[in-house]
């Protein structure tokens, strides 16, 4: 389930439809994932040089002259990437597990200070009737969020900082395939901000803190902190046991350096199934996001659907989401099943499935060959018409 918190609670159909859209948004190919980590440095250089181009500010009616903005962007990109070393972290964070009260005390002091430093940069966002979260990563107000919060470029956004300060701004680009979105505060100001992390340093077992606005912005409560560990790294996604909820979408996952390493995206049933967009993707596609490009959702959408979303595997794709009540759900497909073939056609990856669905008509019988744990299963699913909305 994605984590947008719809302001209009009566639009059950609308949010459900959004769920279905999500289900059919393609995920990134493996290339964009961990294999790409090593290309980080090269991509950063690209971001730097492209930051000079004048197109970025084009969407802002009240933006300063392009040359000024370009300078501001150099300034913005450069300091964000000052190197950090794991050896800078207190020892317990570098161990497999804490083993003493002393370790726990050291972790506690560090987490408290880190949450205090990071919180002022985490904002609640309101776009249309949807609310979510975001994180400010530059003094001039660039805000990372989830694509399903901002949805499309050039929409008006209202930002609320934890101290109650509000600001206006706009949505910029979105990569719907991986659920990465960018926003910009357009009001003048020096905004509280945090740095982005270097994803190639993120490891399984890293301790992380999630900040955001679960359930939407609540002035009596403000920001909510959760601690957890990185429990899975897969192409295009970080999974943690920091529990998330609707309204957290677009909020930030921080490493123990206090840097953003992920952006909250979606959840599944278990409290250890919380998914975050890796921050690397924002850096790699910075210029596309900053110039307001909207992509990743434009694979021609089939009129038929079965109600699943997958993550690429070495062979086939693993079901990450099976929508409740969908044809796939009724046929007994489960998250974690790996789809190998549909109607005899091998499914190389999830995008192959999306392409395949382009040819499927509502009512068509589909035969899925699945692997569940060690067993091979065959499941019959009747494609339905995509719900409207």
């Amino acid at each position, binding site marked *: *389930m994605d984590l947008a*918190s*719809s302001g209009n609670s009566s639009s*059950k159909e609308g*949010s459900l439809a959004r769920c279905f859209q999500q289900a059919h948004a393609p995920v990134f190919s493996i290339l964009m994932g961990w*294999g790409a*980590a*090593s*290309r980080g440095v090269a991509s950063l250089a690209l971001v730097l040089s492209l930051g000079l181009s004048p197109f970025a500010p084009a969407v802002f009616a009240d933006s300063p002259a392009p040359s000024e903005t370009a300078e501001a962007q150099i300034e913005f990109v450069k300091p964000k990437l000052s190197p950090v070393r794991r050896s800078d972290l207190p020892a317990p964070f570098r161990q*497999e*597990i*804490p*083993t*003493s*009260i002393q*370790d*726990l*005390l050291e*972790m*506690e002091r560090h*987490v*408290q200070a*880190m*949450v*205090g430093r990071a919180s002022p940069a985490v904002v609640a966002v309101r776009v249309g009737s949807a609310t979510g979260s975001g994180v400010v990563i530059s003094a001039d107000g660039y805000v990372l969020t989830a694509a399903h919060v901002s949805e499309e470029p050039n929409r008006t956004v209202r930002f609320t900082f934890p101290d109650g300060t509000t600001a206006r701004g706009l949505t910029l680009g979105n990569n719907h395939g991986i659920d990465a979105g960018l926003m910009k505060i357009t009001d003048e100001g020096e905004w509280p901000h945090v740095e982005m992390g270097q994803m190639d340093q993120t*490891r*399984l*077992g890293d301790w992380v*803190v999630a900040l955001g606005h*679960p*359930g939407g912005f609540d002035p*009596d*409560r*403000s*920001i*909510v*902190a*959760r*601690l*957890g*560990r*990185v*429990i*899975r*790294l*897969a192409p295009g996604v970080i999974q943690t*046991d*920091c*529990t998330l*909820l*609707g*309204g*957290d979408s677009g909020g930030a996952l921080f490493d123990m350096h206090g840097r953003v390493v992920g952006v909250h995206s979606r*959840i599944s*049933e*278990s*409290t*250890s199934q919380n998914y975050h967009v890796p921050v690397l993707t924002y850096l790699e596609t910075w210029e596309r996001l900053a110039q307001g490009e909207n992509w990743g959702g434009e694979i021609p959408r089939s009129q038929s659907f079965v109600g699943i979303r997958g993550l690429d*595997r*070495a062979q086939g794709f693993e079901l990450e989401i099976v929508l409740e009540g969908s044809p796939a759900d009724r046929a007994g497909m489960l998250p974690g099943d790996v789809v190998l073939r549909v109607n005899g056609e091998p499914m190389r990856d999830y995008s192959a499935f999306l392409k395949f669905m382009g040819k499927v008509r509502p009512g068509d019988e589909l035969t899925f060959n699945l692997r569940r744990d060690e067993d091979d299963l065959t499941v019959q699913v009747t494609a339905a018409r995509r719900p409207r909305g």
Partner: protein
Amino acid sequence: MHMLRTKTICWLAAVCLVIQSYPLEALAQGRSGRTHRLAEDQHKSGASILRAFSPVAGLVRPSVIELRVAGDMVAFGVIIDPDGLAITKLSEIREGSLSATLFDGRQVDAELIGRDDDNDVALVRINARELRPIEWAAEDAVVGQWGVTPGIDRLPEAVGIISVPPRRILHKRALIGVALNFGAPIATIREIMPGLGAEKAGLQVDDIIQFVEEQSVTTNEELMKALREFRDGQTVRLRGLRGSEAFETTVLMMIPPPAENERPPRHERMNRMGGELSQRAEGFALALQHDTVLHPWQCGSPLVNLEGKAIGLNIARAGRVASYALPSGLVEQIIANLKRDVLTVSHQEQAH
């Protein structure tokens, strides 16, 4: 050729980097090698992590009891007095024979002797002496601080961090069962909803409400705000005008039952993803929020800091991201009131 070599080196470097970013033991654990997952015992609340907290749990467990109704565990309790007084989460103590299990395995009879419905706290007397009462922390809990939930075992039940400082948690909105006329400048009833308190109390369309208990209300907003203070099952006395006549009535506040086949709204379905929630999870004068994943029956336990002092009383599993604990300062007040009430009652009984 040269370029090709550079490419190959880059590719090799990439592969090395990727592999380096996974600890080797994790690679070995990956199911059939296709994914790399952190072993479950190393999750935040996994057994290996809980072990680090065992000195804290060990220190506190003599002050914790398991409460059972007809043999089934329903909640934990916290010992507050050496002579057998404990507190727990009131709404989990259902009708039936109550008993307590101590850290040393003793099983003793227990009896509910006092209740604070407002904060859902029960005072319980257990048939045991020379117990070790919990120590309440003097300082307020800080966001990011560890919160340990000890049971009666050497390992804690669960751990988490403080997510939000203490705040008031409003109870679930209960209704008198009317629709108001929002065009009117004064609080006026437009419609009576069937089956709820207003209908039974005989409220009528066009009635004007002027008082909620002793509080005067003028606008619809003021009326709604005043009614927000009352929870499901409470009654509220309303006074106002029916035509030119003054009227007074007492209305039962209710939460309308969901219509059959109605799916709960999406945000509520999400909130329930990840486990069962406490029946009573709203309506506390003050509660701090922590991210410990608790089961409803794990409430009534103390929430302690690394020194083993209680920063709160676990009072509700409220959602996927939220457990609530009444902060120590409030709990101490509640205890004082409960003890005073019980003492007053026993004095009165003696007088008779």
